[in-house]
């Protein structure tokens, strides 16, 4: 007896796989998106989003925009702003200027730029700015002079002078006068240092940079110290825990204000960014896919902020595929079918080791507290709510503890999906009562293993490159999932379970 679906199924799978492959190849050939990650150059799409409240009259918004610099080449830029006139002012101090006759209420302006990571820049340096001697109020004046003298004596030139200064301000047991300054200039440290350098007749100013990390949203600029020595200049990071490995794009290089709004108030600027791999050819020929044709249906036509979100969403099918494989082919038992995928997403934020340690710690503590709650005879909804609060408390506690112990890694535990953790704890504690600790270990271990494998697949750069750049890959994944859904053979676990038939 054959059901109609017995025949329809291979057809559907073939169709899905064909469509998927065709879409992938189309994008590869027509839009020159490389299939293999590596033969490419890194392009960052950056989006600045300016928000402010207009007063009702004419508005003029002027924003600094990045110029060519040693690590980046500017590829293409554009602005979006309904009703506004937009002008790109070129020159040594490039800016974008939006103007409108009358505007009122909340306003949003966008500026988007693609920059290419490259190091073949031989432009000339900016000349040093004029030195402005600040005048200090008294308790600070003596403090400033003391630091200045110390740093000056232990340095040989302007750059080492700046480095000494930064070191002094960041040391943990700082002397009295440093602590005084730190407290008074809290949040304006780069400005303070620039002023101190100016005081010593060293040309210096505060510039602004953007730390580039794939998928970041609502990011702020990082203030940096720029110091000149003769015709050369150097950039210094001021904060004590900089992510040194992240590439740094200088958004504003001269010490001018980043954003200047006339005719509006409460202005702020946020940045979103996303990394793409493009073939050298398409990156350099300004081959923009403005995607009018439906065939080039790609999420790259969305604003960068949404693209960044999609980057994770498009990876979820990969996680689902991993779950399908582990459940249908292997027969792994997990607590909650797709919960491991959510944990895998959390692991992508925390890194695998921290994630697993954090997960085990939180669940173990949660189980302990939950075993007390079970003696109170609470109703289910109240009990889960109590567990959620407990989970939040545990996570806060771990965050504070790890911070105090100097393990900033531990702070990332905050990325855990708390409600889901609470459910996991509840299920596991029931499981414990009903079937004993062994089953909890089996299912907990199964969940962790699934999460780790899903994480491994989802953070793989090749996989990320394929899912983000090729919509066709999604069709292929669905095809594979449908194929797995029709698999009627044995699971790996059943080869174990029924092993007793060997002796018969």
């Amino acid at each position, binding site marked *: 007896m054959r059901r109609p679906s017995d025949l329809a199924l291979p057809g559907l799978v073939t169709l899905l796989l064909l469509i998927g492959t065709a879409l992938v190849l189309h994008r590869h050939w027509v839009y020159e998106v490389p299939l293999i990650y590596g033969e490419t150059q890194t392009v960052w799409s950056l989006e600045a989003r300016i928000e402010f409240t207009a007063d009702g009259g004419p508005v003029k918004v002027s924003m600094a925009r990045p110029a060519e610099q040693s690590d980046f080449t500017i590829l293409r830029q554009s602005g979006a702003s309904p009703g506004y006139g937009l002008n790109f002012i070129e020159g040594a101090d490039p800016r974008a200027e939006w103007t409108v006759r009358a505007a009122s209420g909340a306003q949003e302006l966008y500026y988007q730029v693609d920059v290419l990571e490259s190091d073949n820049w031989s432009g000339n340096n900016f000349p040093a700015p004029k030195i402005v001697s600040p005048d200090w109020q008294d308790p600070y004046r003596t403090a400033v002079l003391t630091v200045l003298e110390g740093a000056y004596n232990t340095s040989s030139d302007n750059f080492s002078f700046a480095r000494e200064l930064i070191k002094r301000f960041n040391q943990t047991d700082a002397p009295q006068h440093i602590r005084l300054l730190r407290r008074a200039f809290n949040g304006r440290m780069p400005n303070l240092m620039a002023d101190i350098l100016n005081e010593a007749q060293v040309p210096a100013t505060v510039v602004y940079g953007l730390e580039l990390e794939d998928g970041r949203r609502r990011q702020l600029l990082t203030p940096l110290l720029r110091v000149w020595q003769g015709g050369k200049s150097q950039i210094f990071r001021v904060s004590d825990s900089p992510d040194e490995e992240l590439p740094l794009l200088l958004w504003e290089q001269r010490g001018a204000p980043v954003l200047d709004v006339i005719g509006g108030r409460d202005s702020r600027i946020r940045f979103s960014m996303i990394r793409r791999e493009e073939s050298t050819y398409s990156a350099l020929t300004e081959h923009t896919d403005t995607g009018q044709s439906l065939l080039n249906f790609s999420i790259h036509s969305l604003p960068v902020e949404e693209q960044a979100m999609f980057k994770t969403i498009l990876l979820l099918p990969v996680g689902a595929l991993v779950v399908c494989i582990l459940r249908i082919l292997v027969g792994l038992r997990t607590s909650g079918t797709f919960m491991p995928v959510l944990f895998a997403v959390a692991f992508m934020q925390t890194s695998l080791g921290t994630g697993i340690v954090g997960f085990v710690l939180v669940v173990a503590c949660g189980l302990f507290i939950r075993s007390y709650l079970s003696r109170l005879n609470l109703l*289910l909804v109240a009990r889960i709510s109590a567990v959620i609060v407990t989970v939040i408390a545990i996570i806060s506690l771990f965050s504070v503890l790890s911070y105090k112990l100097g393990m900033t890694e531990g702070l990332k535990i905050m990325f855990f999906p708390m409600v889901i953790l609470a459910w996991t704890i509840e299920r596991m504690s029931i499981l414990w009562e009903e079937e004993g600790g062994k089953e909890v270990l089996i299912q907990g271990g199964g969940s962790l293993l699934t999460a780790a494998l899903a994480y491994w697949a989802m953070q793989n750069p090749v996989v990320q490159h394929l899912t983000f750049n090729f919509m066709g890959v999604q069709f292929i994944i669905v095809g594979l999932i449908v194929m797995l859904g029709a698999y009627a*053979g*044995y*699971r790996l676990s059943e080869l174990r379970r029924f092993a*007793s038939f060997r002796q018969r």
Partner: protein
Amino acid sequence: MSRFIAPWTLRSYGILGINRRNSRYIARYNPRRLFPLVDNKLKTKLTVHPAGIPTPAPIGTVAEQSQVAGLSNLLEGHAGFAIKPSKGSGGKGIIVVTGRDGDEFIKASGARLTISDLRRDVSNILAGLYSLGGKPDVAIIEELIHADPRFDRFTVEGVPDIRVIVCRGFPVMAMMRLATHASDGKANLHQGAVGVGLDMATGRALNAVQFGQTVTQHPDTGQRLDELEVPDWDALLLMAARCYEVTGLGYLGTDIVIDRDKGPQLLELNARPGLAIQVANGAGLLPRLRRIDDLSDAELSAPAEERVRLSQSWFGSVEQTVQS
């Protein structure tokens, strides 16, 4: 590699795997809309009752948290009873009370419970702790089934139940599940009950397993298991076969218990019966199921008595090996 078996060997024994069971048997023979009928024990009781299939007599149900306080009134005058979630499975949330001592309730294992322990169980049941998908549930309280004395040495602290797999109205395989101390008076295999495969023709024991390992004696009483024989075997199979007409489910696990006084009673029906029955029988389901797959419409419309007779002749101990 001694801990694994090759897939082709497993195939040659005709073992049914979960994937095939789900896609070829459950999906094909069990219409989704009929699932609630068997996933809800209260509905099962109400459905099979008019057809004259006996089930344990209900004492009452608790459907609201506000009724939990009145639990002791409901239990008044009942020395033995079982509390179970209507939508539960796998023995979860079930408490079997066999007697009382003052204010305390005594479980089959001898453990003692207070009324507040029972209230908590009922309250958890209502909140949906044991139901599929955590949906709110109803607690059923029914009379205690007294095990047939003929089984006394085969089971401890609980009634044994008999699982019969019925495919399109034909009983294809059967096993008896014997409660052990480990399974706490419940006859659920993964909780440690012993599964004994039964000869379809006679109701005699073929082979026995506990936790997936072959056993020859009951782990608590030492009783030799090959002496087990289920009384009224043909009547029991008939009852199982008739569940097909009543529910319309073509791939069904029926759980039947034999009460000391009232004879066979239907405990519950299962639309996704487990695969461990194959281990207990030392035989695979596939050859038998294939035989049912290939039946003609005339054979399928035979009355229940005829179907049982055919099944017994096909699947009884003098079974001819069916090529898979």
